[in-house]
């Protein structure tokens, strides 16, 4: 295959040809190519379409600042929209498609927008599409949305893996150009831990794209030698293909390493990318500079690119967009392009230099004091129109035009903590200034030192300074040290459109219109015109827009200000930030001690926070979950059931002030609780609202075990530690969470004692007399295994909770099952647990919803006035004690076949149904096998006095209205006889 625009030399491996496809057509490039360089070598300049006008677009740059050459890379689920062809490494079999065009890139029907561009100026959409009102969403917006965006997603789950990692160093060097390499060498030789990161796959920065010499040899040699030396140092880590995307607080840098983007599919076990969090007390930014264009009419045609990009393609990739090129420059650097390409045998049509004192060349024509005023060529540049110094015009035939308006230091990372750059008049550019992120310094072109010598020198010097390296610096390698001055030249006055932001189609005219309409702050300009809001974030366009704003406002550029640079430095795959925390790995899964046993029993599991709990245990023949749950409830109430309640939070409270401490955190009293007794406790937040409930068992004089709800385990522990450490620092009390330490099972039902008696060691009497309701004790089971036994009941039955060290949890469950066979012991899950607690009227998460008070919960009198406790004072506020306060009630449908819906609202039996007449709401609902009816718990205004009232339960969102009766929340055994049996 021919590559008509391939030149000699370059850093490509001609022994490794790579076949690839663009828009279905086959091409060949070489290892070391980017997609853009390979396409240019194949004489393809047209690579995309612009956002608004669908103008033909080719690469403007040769790097990550590229606004134009964006393609859909790969296919299938790996389709990757808006990938910059200028940074995409070529690999064998690469497939890419152009974007935002229909039916084809060369013929794009939407290019008709370009014809109507005079109507589609900045902000036109704010002024129209308003009539008739309904048309915006029905007609206009769908059209606009369809046209929006450049690339498309596959709509399939990303099949690749992303990793995250942490790295630490003494010095992070960002950018491996001359300054970065010089800095890393200096730092590395001092023995410091150094990370050198560069977004490119080849280190060397601009040196790879230039024909400069260092130490009297081609700079390539120095680059190779430096990388080899760094590679050999154990204290230096080289991270190519790694973009430092953001400078975060306290020396933390985000960096994305593209591990597998240069191959077809990631190797087995390899991630696509890694998000590194680099901890660096010192950072040296050597991010270089970005060339800026000069705007002129129709400056957006494929083939018109930055002069430095032409040079990169020719020198590094041995590719040129055309064999006859011109250069348009306002500075000496632009001439390098002509010199280098001329040396490669490319015909230089002319160098158009805006300066009257432009340097002379005997190799090509230099048009001093001239400007490019327009261009021609439908899908790519064919002619440039010039205005010469004498005012005459001339047409220049050329297939490519390199434009150089000077260089802007890449200050972005210096601004990530909202520092603003400062204006340097000599360079007519912003340089790092103000407050840099702590620990950061800047060297080389990024700080405005544009000569190779200065880059090498400043890199070494800044590294020394950052690390406090003593002694004399090694001599700086010999390199060019040409003085660099830049005079501002932003745009050529014209009568057509001159592009600033080529992706978003923002022209000089748009900026002028924005100013005319009063959008004069930089942020207004940006937002009104969308300048700089494209995927390149204005890296090549912001400066021009700013300069025009300044001119219109009659201000200096620094007075106009800059927009804020924010992370990431270049667009970053969302998958990389997500890492492996997706799918089942999104959150950790906590398993209960009986999990594997339950799995063997065929349990259905449910997510409860991060826990996985058995929801019910279906047996053969059961086809609906209700059958299983009803059976479990009935069996438990009839004989005995076992439920894993390990997930309840457990907090060990020890110390001589343990009781006094609990007196503070619970609103009810604990000081007088006898050893061997358990008490229900209600915990308030300081604002007087119920936070959580649970039990506290006094195992010894100075030792309590507190339980919390599953959902609030972490929160309650945090709260208790706050109270202990911050409010009562001298209390002699220690806390530790033992949730995972103990497997805990509820053994409930009339035969629960008989079952437990079979496993509790004989020296522990658990008869009703010796171990009454609310008793607790340290015991042993199964011949000496230490355990804790609590006679507490959530189900309303005679019940116990037994705890053993977690590692015995599985064995204990199996033991309970085997010993319980004679009682037909039944394991029950969270559903049956829920049914029984609703039947008993016990509050749970749905009732403790963070807005309910002790009063609402029917426990108003529990808030002790005799002592101070957290929340007691603020619970006295009138709003929490109103006459008709919500009170917990039971709810029963008049017709037992009717449904009760949690989340339904309660309305009076007659009258309007609306928010103004809302009487309360249903918090929990379940089918009660005992009552053979659905039942509910809820909060009702003045509910304590409304037992027997008939009401309507309405749930318009589920289309339900049911007549209900307000009843006691204690549906089952209201006298509490069973629990005391």
């Amino acid at each position, binding site marked *: 295959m021919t590559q008509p625009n391939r030149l000699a030399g370059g850093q490509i491996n001609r022994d490794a040809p790579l076949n690839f496809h663009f828009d279905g057509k086959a091409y060949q490039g070489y290892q070391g190519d980017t997609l853009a360089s390979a396409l240019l070598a194949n004489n393809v300049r047209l690579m995309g379409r612009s956002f608004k006008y669908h103008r033909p677009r080719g690469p403007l740059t040769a790097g990550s600042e590229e606004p134009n050459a964006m393609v859909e890379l790969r296919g299938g689920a790996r389709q990757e*929209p808006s990938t910059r062809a200028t940074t995409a490494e070529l690999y064998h079999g690469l497939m890419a498609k152009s974007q935002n065009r229909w039916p084809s890139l060369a013929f794009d029907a939407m290019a008709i927008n370009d014809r109507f561009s005079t109507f589609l100026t900045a902000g036109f959409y704010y002024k129209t599409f308003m009539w008739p009102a309904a048309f915006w969403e029905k007609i206009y917006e769908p059209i606009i*949305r369809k046209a929006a965006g*450049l690339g498309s997603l596959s709509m399939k*789950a990303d099949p690749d893996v992303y990793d995250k990692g942490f790295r630490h160093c003494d010095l992070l060097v960002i950018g491996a150009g001359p300054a970065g390499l010089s800095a890393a060498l200096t730092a590395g030789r001092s023995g410091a831990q150094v990370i050198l990161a560069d977004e490119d796959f080849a280190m060397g920065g601009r040196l790879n794209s230039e024909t400069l010499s260092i130490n009297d040899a081609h700079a390539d040699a120095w680059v190779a030698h430096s990388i080899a030396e760094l590679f050999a140092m154990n204290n230096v880590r080289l991270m190519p293909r790694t973009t430092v995307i953001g400078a975060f607080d306290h020396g933390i840098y985000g960096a994305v390493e593209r591990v597998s983007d240069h191959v077809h599919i990631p190797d087995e076990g390899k991630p696509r990318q890694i998000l590194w969090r680099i901890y660096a007390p010192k950072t040296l930014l050597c991010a270089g500079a970005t060339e800026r264009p000069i705007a002129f009419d129709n400056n957006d045609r494929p083939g018109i690119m930055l002069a430095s990009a032409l040079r990169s393609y020719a020198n590094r990739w041995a590719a040129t967009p055309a064999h006859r090129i011109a250069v348009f420059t306002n500075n000496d650097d632009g001439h390098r392009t002509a010199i280098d390409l001329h040396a490669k045998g490319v015909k230089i049509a002319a160098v158009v230099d805006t300066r009257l004192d432009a340097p002379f060349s005997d190799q090509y024509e230099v048009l001093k004091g001239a400007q490019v005023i327009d261009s021609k060529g439908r899908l790519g540049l064919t002619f440039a129109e010039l205005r010469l110094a004498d005012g005459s015009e001339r047409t220049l035939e050329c297939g490519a035009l390199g434009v150089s308006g000077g260089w802007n230091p890449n200050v972005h990372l210096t601004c990530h903590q909202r520092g603003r750059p400062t204006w340097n008049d000599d360079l007519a550019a912003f340089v790092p200034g103000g407050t840099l992120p702590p620990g950061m310094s800047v060297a080389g072109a990024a700080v405005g030192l544009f000569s190779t010598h200065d880059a090498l020198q400043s890199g070494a010097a800044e590294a020394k300074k950052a690390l406090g390296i003593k002694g004399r610096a090694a001599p700086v390698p010999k390199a060019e040290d040409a003085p660099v001055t830049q005079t501002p030249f932003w745009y050529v006055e014209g009568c057509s459109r001159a592009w600033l932001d080529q992706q978003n189609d923002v022209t000089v005219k748009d900026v002028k219109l924005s100013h005319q309409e009063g959008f004069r702050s930089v942020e207004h300009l940006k937002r*009104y015109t969308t300048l700089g809001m494209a995927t390149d974030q204005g890296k090549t366009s912001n400066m021009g827009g700013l300069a025009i704003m300044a001119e219109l406002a009659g201000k200096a550029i620094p007075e106009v200000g800059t927009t804020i640079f924010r992370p990431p430095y270049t667009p970053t795959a969302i998958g990389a930030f997500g890492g492996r925390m997706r799918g089942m790995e999104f959150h950790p899964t906590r398993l209960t001690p009986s999990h594997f046993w339950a799995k063997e029993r065929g349990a259905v599991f449910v997510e409860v926070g991060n826990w996985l709990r058995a929801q019910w245990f279906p047996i053969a023949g059961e086809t609906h979950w209700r059958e299983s749950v009803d059976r479990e409830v009935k069996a438990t109430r009839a004989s005995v059931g076992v439920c894993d309640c390990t997930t309840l939070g457990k907090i060990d409270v020890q110390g001589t002030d343990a009781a006094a401490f609990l007196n503070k955190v619970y609103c009810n009293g604990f000081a007088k609780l006898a050893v061997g007794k358990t008490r229900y406790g209600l915990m308030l937040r300081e604002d007087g609202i119920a936070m959580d409930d649970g039990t506290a068992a006094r195992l010894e004089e100075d030792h309590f075990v507190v339980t919390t709800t599953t959902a609030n385990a972490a929160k309650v522990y945090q709260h208790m530690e706050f109270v202990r450490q911050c409010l009562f620092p001298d209390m002699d009390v220690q806390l530790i969470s033992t949730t995972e330490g103990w497997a805990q099972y509820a053994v409930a039902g009339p035969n629960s004692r008989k079952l437990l008696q079979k496993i509790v060691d004989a020296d522990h009497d658990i008869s009703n007399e010796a171990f009454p309701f609310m008793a607790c004790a340290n015991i042993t089971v199964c011949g000496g295994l230490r355990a804790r036994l609590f006679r507490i009941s959530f189900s309303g039955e005679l019940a116990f909770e037994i705890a053993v060290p977690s590692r015995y949890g599985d064995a204990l469950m199996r033991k309970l099952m085997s010993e319980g066979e004679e009682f037909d012991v039944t394991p029950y899950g969270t559903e049956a647990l829920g049914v029984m607690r609703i039947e008993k009227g016990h509050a749970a998460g*749905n009732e403790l919803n963070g807005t309910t008070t002790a009063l609402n919960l029917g426990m108003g009198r529990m808030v002790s006035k005799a002592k101070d406790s957290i929340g007691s004072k603020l619970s006295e506020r009138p709003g929490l004690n109103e006459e008709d306060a919500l009170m917990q009630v039971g709810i029963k449908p008049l017709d037992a076949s009717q449904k009760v819906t949690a989340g339904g609202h309660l309305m009076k039996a007659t009258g309007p149904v609306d928010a103004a007449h809302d009487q309360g709401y249903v*918090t929990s609902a379940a089918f009660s096998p005992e009552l053979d009816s659905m039942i509910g718990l809820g909060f009702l205004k003045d509910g304590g006095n409304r037992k027997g009232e008939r009401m309507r339960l309405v749930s318009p*969102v589920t289309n339900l209205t049911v007549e209900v009766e307000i009843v006691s929340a204690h549906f089952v055994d209201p006298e509490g006889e069973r629990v005391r049996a």
Partner: protein
Amino acid sequence: MRYSGFKVIKEALTGHKGWAPAWRDPEPQPHYDIIIIGGGGHGLATAHYLAKVYGEKKVAVIEKGWIGGGNVGRNTTIIRSNYLLDGNEPFYEFSLKLWEGLEQDLNYNAMVSQRGIMNLIHSDAQRDAFIRRGNAMMLNGADAEYLDLDQIKKEYPFLNFNDARFPIKGGLAQRRGGTVRHDAVAWGYARSADSRGVDIIQNCEVTGFKIKNGKCLGVETSKGFIGANRVGCAVAGSSGRLMSKAGMRLPIESHVLQAFVSEGLKPVLPGVITFGAGHFYVSQSDKGGLVFGGDLDGYNSYAQRGNLPVVEDVCEGGMAIMPMIGRARLLRMWGGIMDMSMDGSPIIDRTHIDGLYFNGGWCYGGFKATPASGYAFAHLLARDAPHPTATAYRFNRFETGHMIDEKGMGNQPNLH
């Protein structure tokens, strides 16, 4: 100057010479009837309604920087009225109705797009809570729709139904919810207020209040003293800073909330989606970017930027619920200062200082409230009485115990 399709065409054909500035750039007058501090969405909306609905003639909006530069210029553009509590729902529903007529009211296309909002449900308890909420919305006259799993699968086939750690069990939709072009809201209100004689004074920082005998007489600014009969403060995240100049402490903390936008993509999402088991919500702008966000960073901050852990947390949520976005690129992240109140609900009230009024505590939900907040604040400033939809938004609710705590998190602002 009225905007219209005809005007756009006429200007296009005559070289766009006739477009006038969207608002004037006046010097402050020595005295106004009403001064609004804060040229954000709420302040500008207040000025618009003061002029248009309440007939106030001498009104100024004073802005420290450029208008629309606060949270109205950096949010995730969502509008909705899916609130639970009586103190909130009528207000947000009023706001949604104002959004629905905004463009005609302002003669400015703010691209109100009622694409719907869907809150996903992942547990039974969440379903109960969302049904209660949906019912509260409907009982207040708003729209709500409960969707079961099959309906979700049909409408949102790209969600993770495959290996979700927290499987989707349903959703609560509000079809009238959606998104609005946020900057245009500020500009539209500004242009309308300006055209009705309101002075919008940019780059004018309030440095103090002139308070005598318990009455506020005006404000000291970087452009000198400006007198006023009534001063309304609507500065969102800067509330603490500003009101301290009047000697006030507020039931508010300022926190950073980050938000994110991806590169522009061809249409992917039908509306707003919120993930109920992680910190992630997302919509797609008319320009094609995925606009998404999640939780607060969690610490007090005025820095307008956040940190990596929350960026990762949000993207993890996104990848968990919508793994197709893995190869979309995050383009830009930013942080706004949220005026997080002690119960998660706002305050629109008089202060103890005569003539000084306060509007703030919007948490991360201020954008959707912009029209109603402006309307209610204008009502308060003009009539010295709370607007009927905002009667609960008083300072003293914390004293009396009438908190409006949607999330049930209590007096810890970063949990709301």
